[in-house]
């Protein structure tokens, strides 16, 4: 094993240790377990956006659409189909992913700013549907009347609703599974074609890669991840509302990815930590918490364009 590989493993071990022991060390710094769950889920959303942005080079500014669809599908499944947490997750993942696959097919010929604009437009369509269709979605008040259910393993049950620590570990296991799938895809021959497209689309095309097909697959995968994250988010709050579909949330995910470092795998999670923790602390002091995030993002983009993790990585290489 080389020194670089050793370092890589040590960093991975540190990340997972921090996540696994979070319910124990976070209270020391004034955190609470539910905050940890929120960081994980929003971090998963940011990583899904970055799966497309950082590794395929395609900027979607409407990814909250698939996140929100996942949340609503999860809530509606729990409310109307059957009270089962896994069912809610599967429903959210499928609805977010399939909607993404269908609309993605209309998107893949657009590039750059045009792609971003059309994704915003699609996202806003879902926002207004959720807003207007009160009888199903609860409209502006949001979707209520569902709650995460205990995990039933026949021999024993795990109560996710009343025990925040159990629920945190449930979220962590879900997070780990999706992140493992992402990492696996990025290391595959297909994942390398994504990176080829990010690096140089023209070259990739003239190596015989059908660009549109590959972007569509990457987009669709990221929508499935996003739907899953949205379903988890609905379970955190036992609630889904139209703002989960709004483009400002899409923007938040992009901000998390850029702050953390979009060329890195773990960067968006770090971005989510910074974003969510700052939001939590500053919003208890002032309602203008967003302006502090704004200043921070300007500083990061100006001085560390590769994000916080990208900066750390550069330092190490130098």
């Amino acid at each position, binding site marked *: 094993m080389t020194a670089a590989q050793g370092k890589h493993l040590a960093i991975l071990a540190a990340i997972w240790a921090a996540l696994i022991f979070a319910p124990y060390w976070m209270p020391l710094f004034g955190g609470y377990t539910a905050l940890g769950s929120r960081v994980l889920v929003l971090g998963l959303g940011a990583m899904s956006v970055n799966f497309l942005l950082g590794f395929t080079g395609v900027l979607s500014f409407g990814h909250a659409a698939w996140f929100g669809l996942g949340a609503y599908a999860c809530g509606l499944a729990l409310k109307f189909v059957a009270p089962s947490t896994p069912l809610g997750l599967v429903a959210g993942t499928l609805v977010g992913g399939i909607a993404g696959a269908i609309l993605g097919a209309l998107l893949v010929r657009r590039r750059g700013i045009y792609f971003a604009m059309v994704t915003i437009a699609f996202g806003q369509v879902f926002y207004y549907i959720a807003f207007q269709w009160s009888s199903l979605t609860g409209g502006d008040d949001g979707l209520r009347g569902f709650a995460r259910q205990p995990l039933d393993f026949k021999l024993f049950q795990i109560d996710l609703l009343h025990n925040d620590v159990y629920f945190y570990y449930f979220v962590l296991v879900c997070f780990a599974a999706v992140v493992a799938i992402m990492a696996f895809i990025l290391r*595959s*021959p297909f994942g390398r*074609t994504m*990176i080829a497209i990010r690096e140089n689309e023209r*070259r*990739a095309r003239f*190596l*015989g890669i059908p660009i549109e097909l590959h972007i569509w*697959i990457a987009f669709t995968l990221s929508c499935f991840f996003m739907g899953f994250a949205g379903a988890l988010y609905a379970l955190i709050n036992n609630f889904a509302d139209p703002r989960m579909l709004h483009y400002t949330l899409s923007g938040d995910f992009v901000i998390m990815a850029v702050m953390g470092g979009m060329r890195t795998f773990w960067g968006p999670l770090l971005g989510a930590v910074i974003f969510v923790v700052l939001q939590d602390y500053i919003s208890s002091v002032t309602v203008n918490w967003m302006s502090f995030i704004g200043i921070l993002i300007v500083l990061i983009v100006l001085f560390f364009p590769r994000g916080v993790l990208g900066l750390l990585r550069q330092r190490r290489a130098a």
Partner: protein
Amino acid sequence: MSVLAVRNLTKRFGSLVAVRDISLTVEAGELRAVIGPNGAGKTTFFNLVSGFLASSTGSILFEGRDISRIPAHQRVGLGMARTFQITEIFPELTVFENIRIVTEVAAGYRLRPWLNRAEAADIRRRIDETLALAALSDKADRLVGELAHGDQRATEIMMALALKPRLLLLDEPTAGMGDQETYEISQIIRRLHKDNKLTIVLIEHDMRVVFHLADRITVLDQGGFLAEGTPREIAANEAVQTAYLGQAA
């Protein structure tokens, strides 16, 4: 059967005719140079053949099959590879990673979620072969963007070659190079032509390279066909001399 047969190829951009009624035939194993003054339509011609642009009229036959309406990436799949006038590579990846992407695509693994052990070993062996061919093995772990211009060019040519093409299109392979680098790239091209019997069409401005390498030369001028022949015939052709001198005057 000829590898490439172009029939009455025309490309219009609005009222501008960039390529006018060009026909040419390239036989298997031939090295054809396409030359002409600036604005002669050489690169447009390449872009039509490789599928980067769609032709207005005319046909392009690759190994007897009409490819003029199929997309670029499928032409690559049929056995046609190209390089660009301005080097097109993956600059933030290493030489090894650049070649690996092509090798996996060429092996038909581009949609695969994983490779088994035998497939991975086979890919590894083919990458090493390709690297050795252009003496890039010791630079395999360097980022391509950090390499000298000549090595970047060599990497690009090797990427095209890793596709195992039956027709290689090179757009000004020695553009912007010093004498030493020009010499090295021409040696690589010469080896591909003589040893690997590869059919090559190249656009080139450096006449030493053209006359050193080419079996036959096609001259374009202002979008149209001007002359075709062996290097000796072209050197003696008055119309060609006028086209070049006329532009210089």
